[in-house]
């Protein structure tokens, strides 16, 4: 069995784990990070993409609001390439209590948010699709953040500082000697081979799955997964993030992300964080809710629906109140030595994407103390790879690149403007790409055609380039088609139903994928 020693073994390759890896590596620790799947496939890759200003939490969870406001400022400095500076609006729709707006403004100011009330006429002028019947509007520092880009930048940064990162490595055993956790055994989900990593400290950064990981070490972590449903709508319906100014509920945020708008979200407790099924009822709830912010929302083309599981912390783990949206969206570092008498294991629980840096800082502060090291956190000022120019991502970036690409570099995905060169660059980073991993890295198959045209191109090119064998290419194609179906099957109406039919004609009619050899 392949075996090595590391200072910190991070379990979980979402935003939390990637943040911990980056922070630890910057402090001079040797890091190994593992995930049972590709990175950012759990909750981090399944949220709406909102970089919180703090407004959403201002009234009910002032601690989280304060954290969001300050972390938002820091991320804009260190991760500009992953962020689009859309700004945000909180608006009182005809159904919202105007008195809440006063409380909201006061709470936002108290949380240190930059906030400004703007006349309704100005808000509607800036956002022509916004409901003209809104009664108040507040401008805040919301943004949109690309989770795949962010996590990829954090991991590349960590790797530049010596970290080892392993996707598709599932923890099958936590090595425990007496009261001490000393490492873990991981199984490569593709080859079946096992690796053993001895670690000075193991960080459980498995988010909604951290209860499962803690269980392997004989500890209990009471994280409750809370499912949130999101729908991506073709086109950007607004320039800024649109929020309803009321106590947070379902379907009250519309986030412009890259080429789409995402509406979110719901909050239902689920037993299993892998339960990502979305029901037609949940989707309709989102679409109906969107009408209140953007009249005519229902007529928009829904591209895809998905859900993710928040890692909610019940009051037994924090001092906050009860009820799902009332549990704090803040985070807690659980030192299992002090808590359960099991040394060498730290769980970072709760939290949210916007505060990933702070979560990592708090976690690694505990880790260095436990390792008996001294090193200051550097992530407040250290700029992530790709963000050196401090230019925010802009929706025209890819068009600009496509126009300056060399003439022999064909586009393989017209929806998301991905060229063959982009594909070659990404697949050179590591072996064994699934088409779905490439989707996360490049957004191939995420546009209106949902892979109808580009999936076969990518599979064919990877086969031709020697990265896929024949059977692998076939199963990659089948798997991708199946995976995409998951996100469109409950939004079969309008233009997307028509697209789904065209895709069916291509996959089954033209290619006859159903009768392709294994």
């Amino acid at each position, binding site marked *: 069995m392949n075996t090595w020693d590391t200072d910190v073994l991070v379990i979980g390759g979402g935003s939390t784990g990637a943040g911990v890896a980056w922070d630890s590596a910057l402090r001079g620790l040797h890091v190994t990070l593992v995930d049972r799947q590709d990175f950012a496939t759990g909750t981090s890759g399944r949220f709406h993409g909102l970089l919180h200003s703090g407004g959403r939490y201002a009234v009910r969870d002032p601690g989280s609001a304060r954290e969001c406001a300050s972390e938002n400022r820091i991320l804009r400095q260190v991760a500009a390439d992953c962020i689009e500076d859309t700004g945000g609006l909180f608006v009182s729709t005809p159904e919202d209590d105007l008195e809440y707006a006063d409380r909201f403004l006061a709470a936002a100011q108290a949380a240190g948010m930059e906030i400004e009330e703007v006349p309704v006429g100005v808000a509607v002028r800036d956002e022509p699709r916004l409901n003209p019947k809104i009664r108040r509007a507040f401008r805040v520092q919301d943004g949109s953040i690309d989770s795949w880009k962010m996590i990829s930048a954090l991991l590349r940064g960590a790797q530049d500082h010596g970290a080892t990162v392993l996707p598709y490595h599932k923890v099958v055993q936590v090595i425990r000697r007496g009261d001490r956790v000393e490492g873990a055994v991981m199984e490569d989900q593709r080859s079946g081979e096992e690796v053993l990593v001895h670690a000075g400290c193991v960080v459980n950064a498995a988010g909604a799955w951290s209860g499962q990981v803690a269980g392997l070490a004989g500890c209990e972590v009471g994280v409750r997964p809370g499912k949130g449903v999101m729908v991506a709508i073709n086109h950007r319906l607004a320039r800024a993030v649109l929020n309803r100014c009321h106590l947070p509920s379902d379907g009250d945020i519309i986030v412009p992300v890259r080429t789409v708008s995402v509406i979110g979200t719901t909050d239902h407790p689920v037993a299993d964080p892998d339960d990502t099924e979305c029901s037609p009822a949940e989707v*309709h709830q989102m*679409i109906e809710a969107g009408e209140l912010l953007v009249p005519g929302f*229902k007529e928009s083309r*829904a591209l895809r629906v998905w859900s993710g599981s928040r890692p909610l912390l019940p009051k037994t783990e924090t001092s906050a109140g009860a009820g799902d949206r009332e549990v704090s969206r803040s985070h807690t570092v659980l030192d299992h030595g002090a808590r359960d008498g099991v040394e060498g294991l730290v769980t970072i629980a709760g939290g949210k994407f916007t505060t990933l840096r702070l979560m990592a800082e708090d976690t690694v502060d505990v880790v260095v103390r436990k390792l008996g090291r001294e090193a200051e956190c550097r992530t407040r000022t250290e700029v992530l790879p790709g963000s050196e120019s401090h230019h925010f991502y802009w929706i025209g970036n890819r068009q600009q690149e496509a126009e300056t690409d060399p*003439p*022999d*570099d*064909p*586009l*393989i995905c017209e929806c998301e403007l991905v060229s063959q060169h982009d594909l070659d660059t990404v697949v050179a980073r590591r072996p064994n790409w699934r088409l779905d991993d490439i989707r996360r890295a490049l957004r191939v198959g995420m546009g209106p055609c949902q892979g*109808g*045209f580009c999936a*076969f*191109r990518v*599979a*064919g*090119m990877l*086969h*031709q380039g020697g990265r896929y064998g*024949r059977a692998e*290419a*076939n199963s990659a*194609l089948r798997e991708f*088609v*199946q995976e995409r*179906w*998951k996100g469109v*099957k*409950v939004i*079969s*109406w*309008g233009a997307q*139903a*028509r697209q*789904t*039919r*065209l895709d*069916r*004609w*291509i996959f*089954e*009619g*033209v*290619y*006859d*994928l*159903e*009768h*392709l*050899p294994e």
Partner: protein
Amino acid sequence: MGTDAVVLGAGTAGMVAALRLAAAGASVLVLAEGEGGLPLAPAQIDVLGYRPQLVLDPLGEIPGFLDSRPDHPYRLVEAAEVEAGLDWFLELAAPLGYTGNPHQNRLQPTAVGALRPTCLVPETMAAGDLSGGGSVLVVGLKGFRDFHAPLLAENLALARPPSGAEVRARSVEVSLLGDPRDLRPQLLVRRLEERPVLAELGREIRSRLEQEDLVGVPAVLGLERSHEVWQRLQELVGRPVFEIPTPPPSQPGQRLQQHLFRALRRLGGEVRLGARASGYRASGDRLVAVKVVTAAREVEIPADRFVLATGGIGTGGITAGPEGELREEVFGARVSRGGAPEEPLAEYMATQPLDRLGVEVDDEQRPVGGAGGALFENLWVAGAALAGAEPWREKSGEGISLATGYRAARLAGGGRA
């Protein structure tokens, strides 16, 4: 003034109905919202390929297929009429060299390398029937993104036709002169109509041939001059050459479309593209006119008889709303789910809720009206607008369109009523 028959939709079904009506002496106007459905499809004439097991004799197996699928549109057409429609099509499409036997499916490679059953094919694909095995050199064109010769050849080499005969396949990739960025089928067909480019391609293929007795190429062998391009390439290569269909836009589909449009014009008919039918005017049970949006205004087009061939959800003839409401767009005809399940299934390759949608019709292919009678006595439905089929899985689309379009024209009658 006035038109005997208005056909809505310029796909296979609409064009077949229009041509049959025109041949019977009617003045015909075809209206289509877009450019018609033909450029979407590979121009192979599928009749029945899977039920779900592989079908070898499509005409012969339709009755058995209907036993398990009583709601299928083939229930509307007698076997003899399906056959008559196919025979008529073979004659009509003779200039494109269509060939095949309605009682014998052919097994042609797809762009991924599956062996796919189909019934009639144009001459440019005729050599690609691998029912009896064969040894194929698959030729890829460098820079063409929708055709991956190595994967195709490797899959094809594993295909086993029911005859048990062996299929062998090997791939090569060739560069076309100049190799411009973003090679699309629309551009490739024109390049290959240039003699020096074709000559270069032919020489290149010939030099790389080994023992193969067939050459398979992506379906981009010319547009207007496809016969000449295909013929010349065979001479240059010294082996039979066949085209393998690629995803839309389909160049063989384009050729067939142009051929059918021209044939209709020769019979005095007219095709008007970019004309969306937006409504109708009726007098009692009789349809008097369709309303059409052109140049930003709505005009009425009166006619004596009407054929609805706007297709299903894939072409916009039928739409689905967010609440699950289904609508036939022109006449508001009753839409049936055709026996498909109400809720989506997790498995993609299964019958899904919208897969068999279509207009509900009586035995005479007329939309069913309120009291169970016909919605209008002079409106007939043909092709993918009919409920009950899953043509992409069954490989039945063109057969349904041909048979029901052919029959719709017969039911609508010949000359002016």
